[in-house]
C-alpha cells in the first residue's frame, strides 16, 4: 500500500476549523451547564463564557461564509451520492480489515459523499438553528413571559429555548462522531495532522 501527500486545508480553513472547535466545545460545556445538565462551575461563569464565545463564533462564521463564497469552496458541500455506498461499506466493514479508504480527497473535492451530507446538515440545519434561536435569546429573552403581546414573531421564550436545546443536542452528537471519525485516517492521527499542517495522507 502506498500513500501520497495532498495539500488539502489552506491556512484560513485550518484556523477556522480549530477556533471553531474551541468555541463549540466551550459553548457545549457552558450551554449544558446553564441548561442544568452538567455541573462543576457556577452559572455566572457559564453565561459569561457562553455569551462571549457565541459572539466570537458568529464573527468567525461571518468570515467563514465570506471565505466560502469568495473562494468557491462552498461547492465542497454540494451533496452527492458518488461512491456513497462504497464509503459506507468501508466504515461498516473494510476499515476493520485494514482496507484503504475508497475515496481519495483532492483539493477540489475534499469531502466524500457522507462527509458532504454530514457537513451540509451542520451548515444548513444545526448552525442556523443555533444562530437564530441564540440571537433571539440574546436579544429577546426580556420577552420571556407567556404574555401573548410580548412574544417576538409569536414565538415564546420556551419555544426558542427548546429549539436551541435540540440544536445543541444535535451539535453534541455531531461532535462525538466527528472526534471519532477524525481517527479513521490512514493512521489514527493522519486526519488530525492534516487539519494542523494542511497535508493529508492518501492511501492508494
Amino acid at each position, binding site marked *: 500500500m502506498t500513500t501520497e501527500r495532498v495539500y488539502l486545508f489552506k491556512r484560513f480553513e485550518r484556523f477556522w476549523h480549530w477556533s471553531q472547535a474551541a468555541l463549540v466545545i466551550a459553548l457545549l460545556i457552558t450551554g449544558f451547564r446553564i441548561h442544568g445538565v452538567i455541573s462543576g462551575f457556577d*452559572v455566572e461563569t457559564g453565561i459569561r463564557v457562553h455569551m462571549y464565545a457565541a459572539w466570537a463564533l458568529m464573527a468567525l462564521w461571518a468570515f467563514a461564509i465570506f471565505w466560502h463564497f469568495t473562494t468557491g469552496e462552498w461547492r465542497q458541500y454540494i451533496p452527492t451520492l458518488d461512491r456513497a455506498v462504497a464509503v459506507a461499506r468501508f466504515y461498516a466493514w473494510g476499515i476493520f480489515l485494514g482496507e484503504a479508504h475508497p475515496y481519495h480527497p483532492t483539493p477540489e473535492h475534499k469531502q466524500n459523499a457522507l462527509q458532504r451530507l454530514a457537513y451540509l446538515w451542520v451548515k444548513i440545519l444545526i448552525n442556523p438553528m443555533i444562530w437564530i434561536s441564540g440571537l433571539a435569546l440574546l436579544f429577546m429573552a426580556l420577552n*420571556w413571559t407567556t404574555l401573548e*403581546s410580548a412574544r417576538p414573531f409569536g414565538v415564546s421564550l420556551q419555544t426558542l429555548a427548546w429549539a436551541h*436545546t435540540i440544536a445543541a*443536542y444535535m451539535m453534541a452528537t455531531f461532535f462525538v462522531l466527528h472526534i471519532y471519525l477524525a481517527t479513521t485516517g490512514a493512521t489514527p492521527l493522519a486526519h488530525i495532522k492534516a487539519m494542523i499542517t494542511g497535508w493529508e495522507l492518501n492511501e492508494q
Partner: protein
Amino acid sequence: MKPTASDRINSARLTSWAAALAICALLASGASAETATAPTGAAPLAAAPAGTDDPALQPLKLQRAVPRANGPWTPVDHGKFAALKGPFKSPRDVTSACLTCHTDSANQMKSTIHWTWSKKDPNTGHMIGKANVFNTFCANIKSNEQFCTVCHVGYGDPDPAHFVPFNERAENQVDCLVCHDRSGKYKKIPFLGGNPAVERTRVRPGCNEVYGTEEPYVDPPDLAAVAQSVGAPKRENCGGCHFYGGGGDGVKHGDLDSSLVKATKALDVHMDANGLNFACETCHVASNHLLAGSHYEVDAKPTGGALMRGSAHGGNPASCQSCHGDMPHKKSTLASTINMHTRDIACQTCHIPAMARGGVATKMKWDYSSAGKFGPNGTPLVLNDAKGDNVYWGVKGTFAWGRDVIPQYAWFNGSEDWMTNGEKLHPGADGVVEVNRISGSATDGKSRIWPFKIMRNNQPFDPVNNTLTIFHSFGFDDDAFTISGDWNRSITAGMKDAKLPYSGKFSFVPTRMYWPLAHMVAPAEKALQCAECHADGGRLASVAGVYIPGRGSDHQPWTERLGMLAVVLSAAGVIGHGLLRIMMWLRRRRGEAA
C-alpha cells in the same frame, strides 16, 4: 452639643499649633517655593489666631449632597421655645403647644392612614386598613382597640374599657411625640388608648416587651423633656410600632425588627449605621405628613427611570427603582443579562436573600386552637424553646419562629384582596383561608415575581355563619380571652362589638397571610446567585408562567430524552467501533508477525 468657650479656645490653640508645625515642617524639608504655596491657607490663621472663629474667614464649604440621614433636619432647637418649657399636665397639652406653630399638622395627620386605620382600596373598592381587615396574628382590632391603639398616632381615653373612635377626637388628640420624640424616653402603654403612662403603671406579667421596660412598672415620661427633643423621626420612632407589630420584636414583618436600629451593611446596605445610614423617611418620603409606601398600596412594578428632581413622574419614592432606575446593573460583565430580569423580577427577590437576618426571630406560625392552657400557678402557661423563642403562651397559643428565613415567591401586581370584617370565607383548594389573597400572574403585564413572608395561623371561625370570628383578646374584663381563656365568651363579646352575627359555635380554620418584603436589602455581593433560581428545585421552582433556563420542569422532556439518547448512542457506537478496529488491527498484526 454646643461648643463651650474653653472648647473654642482649645480648638483655636490647636489650629495655631498645627499651622506652625506645618510651616516648620516645610522649612525643615527645604520645600521649593512652588510647593510652599500649597498650605498658605494655614498661614493667615496662624497670623490671626483671634479670627479663627470668624465664619467669614473659614474655607468655603458648600452642602455637597442630600442632608445626612438621621439628623434632626431642622434649623430649630425646640428646647428654646417658650411654648415647650412645660411642665405639661397631659400629652394633649404637648400637642396643643406643637399646634401653636405647626398649625396644620394635626389636620394633615388626621387625613392619613396612620390616623384613620381605614381607607378605601382603589383596586377592590373594599374598606381596608387595620380597622377593617383580619390578620393572622391577633386576628382583629375590633373590641381590642384600647390595647391595639398603643400603636395609633393619637390619644384616646386612658380608661382601658372606653374606646373613643378616631373621628370623634380633637386636634390635640393627635400624638406628635410618638413619631418626633428624639429623646427615646417617650413610650405609649397598652390598654391606655394610645396614652403614655399617666401615673406609675404596673406591667402586665409577660408583657414587658410591649410596655418597653424590664421593670415591673412604668413611670410617666417627662413630657417637657420629650417635647423639647423633637425633630425628624428616627428609626426607633418608626420602629417602635413597625418593628414590634404583632406583639413583639420582629414578630410581624420578617424584614423589619430592632436589628435595623444599628444595622450592619450585611443586614441592610442602605441603613448601614457606618455607611449610607438612611433614615426610614429617606425612602418613605413624607409630604404634609403623608408617607410614601404602604402594604396597602404596593407598587409591584414601577416603570421608567430613576426619579429626577423636577420631573413630572408621579412615581413612588419608596421603590428601589425611584433611585436606581429600571436598568440598575452596570458594573458586572453580565449587566445586560441581569437587567433583563428587572421587567419580571422584583428587585427584592434577589436583593433580599433571606428575612430576619439580624438575629431577631420572626413569627412564622401561630396556632390559636391550642391557646387557653394555664400553668400550675394559675397564670397562662409559657413555654420557651432552647433558643429562648416563645413557643407556647396560654393567652395566644402555639408559635413557630424563624431566623434567616428564605422567602416564598409569587407573581404579584400589588393588589391584595383583604378579608374584611363579616366577609364570608372562601378558602382555597388547599382549605386555607387567605386573609389577603394576592393578585398577579405572568400574563397581566402588571406583575413581577416578589418575595413574601407567609404567616400562618389556625384561628377561630364561625362554621354556621362561615365567617372568621372577631374576639375580645385584650382587656382587664372577664370577657377578654387573655383573662378568662374562654373562647365562646370572648368571641361573643367581639362579635357583639363588631355588630356581627355569631351562631354560638366556633371552630378553627387554617389561615395564611402574605407579607411582601422590601427591607433588609443586602449588599450586591450578598444578592442571590444565578443558580439559586436557575436550577432544579431552586427558589422559583413553583413559580409558573415563565421559562427559567436551568429549571428542569421547563425543559421539553422528549427533547432531553432523545437528545441524550443520541449523544449516548453515538458515544457507545464509536467506542464499540473503535474497540473492534483495535481488535482487528491487533489480529492482523499477529497474523503478519506469524
